[in-house]
């Protein structure tokens, strides 16, 4: 990666607050990261960690009344925070595209898949209906859809989950976006299909030159796919760094706990995966200190102050342990 070139996406101190019950609650708190061209960044976290909210903010899709978004998100040097909807609309679909978790509900049920892909193509360029369909069929073929012409005339409910997600990706890629945000693209799919879809995502970088922001709760998916990883916990960054490093030497107890919960891809599954006791705090009840402290086995007095995100090697870690010289043990990763 060329360190001098400006990154495709540079997010700094992105903070999202929503009004809940009459007061503003910070959902995403000062999240910063960069994404280079042709890079795949994984954002990992439990549900409610703010990862989807971050993605929606980048798409300009947060329209809850009273939502407040501060900080900066520069995409190709263009500031996205505060960008008017009209300007966002030209970016969406063409420059930044998004794939959603459940391809069943993400397609409008009353139109054929092909119609919906055509619609996106025609929304961003003067393309005839016929030309759009030709491109749609080619895209579907590219995504590994068998008999793409027939599938294009199918309604979403008539397709299998894997085909739907391929069609969804085809739709996302239909305008050659520079950035693809994939929000839990494999969660709703079964394991074999998951692997195929992830494979497809990795190919995209090669064949379409897209950067990918992959949002997931599944460390296994990250391990297979991402160049770099960012772990979010309760709206804040817990740890970020190159995937290999993060997996080999997790610097945050939360990361380590997440890694423990990955089912092994090969070999027998353990009867019961170790899971993190308790649940993440609701954004409104987030403690003043380290948000993970209540669930952390290493919690001690120092955790009463929110730890800053500090570099350690190639990683950035928001935990007092490394500074105290108590690194977590290294791990053996098969990825």
């Amino acid at each position, binding site marked *: 990666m060329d360190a001098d070139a400006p990154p495709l996406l540079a997010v700094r101190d992105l903070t999202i607050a929503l009004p809940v019950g009459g007061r503003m609650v910070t959902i995403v708190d000062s999240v910063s990261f960069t994404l280079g061209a042709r890079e795949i960044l994984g954002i990992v976290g439990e549900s409610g960690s703010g990862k989807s909210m971050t993605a929606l903010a980048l798409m300009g899709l947060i329209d809850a009344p009273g939502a407040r978004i501060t900080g900066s998100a520069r995409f190709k040097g263009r500031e996205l925070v505060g960008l008017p909807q009209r300007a966002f609309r030209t970016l969406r679909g063409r420059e930044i595209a998004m794939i959603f978790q459940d391809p069943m509900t*993400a397609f409008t049920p009353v139109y054929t898949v092909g119609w919906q892909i055509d619609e996106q193509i025609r929304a961003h360029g003067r393309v005839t209906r016929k030309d759009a369909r030709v491109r749609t069929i080619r895209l579907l073929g590219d995504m590994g859809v068998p008999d793409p012409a027939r599938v294009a005339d199918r*309604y979403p409910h008539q397709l299998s989950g894997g085909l739907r997600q391929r069609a969804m990706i085809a739709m996302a890629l239909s305008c050659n976006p520079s950035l693809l945000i994939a929000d839990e693209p494999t969660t709703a799919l079964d394991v074999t299909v998951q692997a195929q879809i992830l494979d497809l995502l990795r190919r995209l970088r090669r064949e379409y030159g897209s950067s990918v922001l992959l949002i997931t709760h599944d460390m296994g998916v990250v391990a297979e796919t991402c160049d770099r990883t960012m772990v979010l916990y309760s709206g804040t960054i817990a740890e970020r760094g190159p995937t290999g490093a993060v997996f080999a030497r997790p610097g945050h107890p939360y990361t380590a706990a997440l890694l423990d919960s990955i089912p092994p891809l090969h070999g027998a599954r353990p009867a019961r995966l170790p899971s993190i006791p308790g649940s993440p705090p609701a954004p409104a009840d987030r403690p003043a200190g380290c948000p993970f402290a209540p669930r952390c086995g290493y919690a001690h007095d120092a955790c009463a102050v929110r730890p800053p995100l500090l570099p350690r090697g190639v990683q950035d870690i928001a935990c007092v342990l490394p500074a105290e010289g108590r690194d977590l043990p290294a791990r053996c990763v098969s990825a």
Partner: protein
Amino acid sequence: MAMAVLRRLGQTLFVLFGISVLVFLVFFATPGADPTARIAGRNASPQTIARVRVEYGFDRPLPVQYVRMMEKLFVTRDLTSYVNRGELVVPEVFQAAPVTVSLVTGAALIWVLASVAMGTLAAALRGTWVDRGLMMLGLVGISIPVFWLGQVANLLTQSRYHDSWLFSWVPGLGYVPFTQDPLGWFRALVIPWVTLAVLFVGIYSRVLRADLVAVRGEDFMRTARAKGLSPARVLLFHGLRTSMMTFVSLFGLDFAQLVGGGALLTEVVFGLQGVGRLTYQALGNLDLPLIMATVMYSAVFVVIANAVVDMLYLLLDPRVRDGRA
């Protein structure tokens, strides 16, 4: 498919049979309902009364009378009124049907267009004063008794402002057949249309707005926005098109009920000799043959309309088409 149609037909026939038996029994259990003296005429002699009794079969057992009446209604179609001697009831109903259909179809057109416009606009401008204003307007529409609205409309258009430029075009009350004078048909019906539509504009615009607001949270709406479509396209092509399903099922029910006689208050106020008014008159006169004919018509129509709505549903929702509703 054929089985389903057959089952539906069976159910329908059963319902029709039940309703007709009920009507028949209630009629003969009502004191003063014995039509013999009414048919015979004022001050008829006992012999004349006896003759009428035999001629109309009132001396036969009730089941025989029932079968005879059904035969005359459906097979020979020469059932005659008990009130207007010699008046055939089947043509009477078929004469009234076009009036009701004209009234209800026109009103339906108005209420669908107006409520789609109002509901969509309100949903698009959710939370603004336009939204609040439109929804309050809808609520007012729901709250006005239709017969009162009709009376006030008559007061304004037939009397108070009839001589002003505003309403001088309004013809007297009553129906003008379309085949006879299309323009006259339109002018005679336009005020009843609007009057009947007001209630439904209120209901439908509120339902549609609620649906559209609910549908905004759906994944596919987010997808549509993520595709970079304009808000109008998202709302109309994705939101509205999907909400149309609820809308159509509501519409089917209401349309069927109105054509089946539910518009009688409007028909009464505007002097339209439609099915509802005919039923009401028949009930008021205790004219059993006419009651039977109108009730059967109403039931048959409601069933047919429901079937049509089901077809429309098939057309609108591919999921239903594949039997996975």
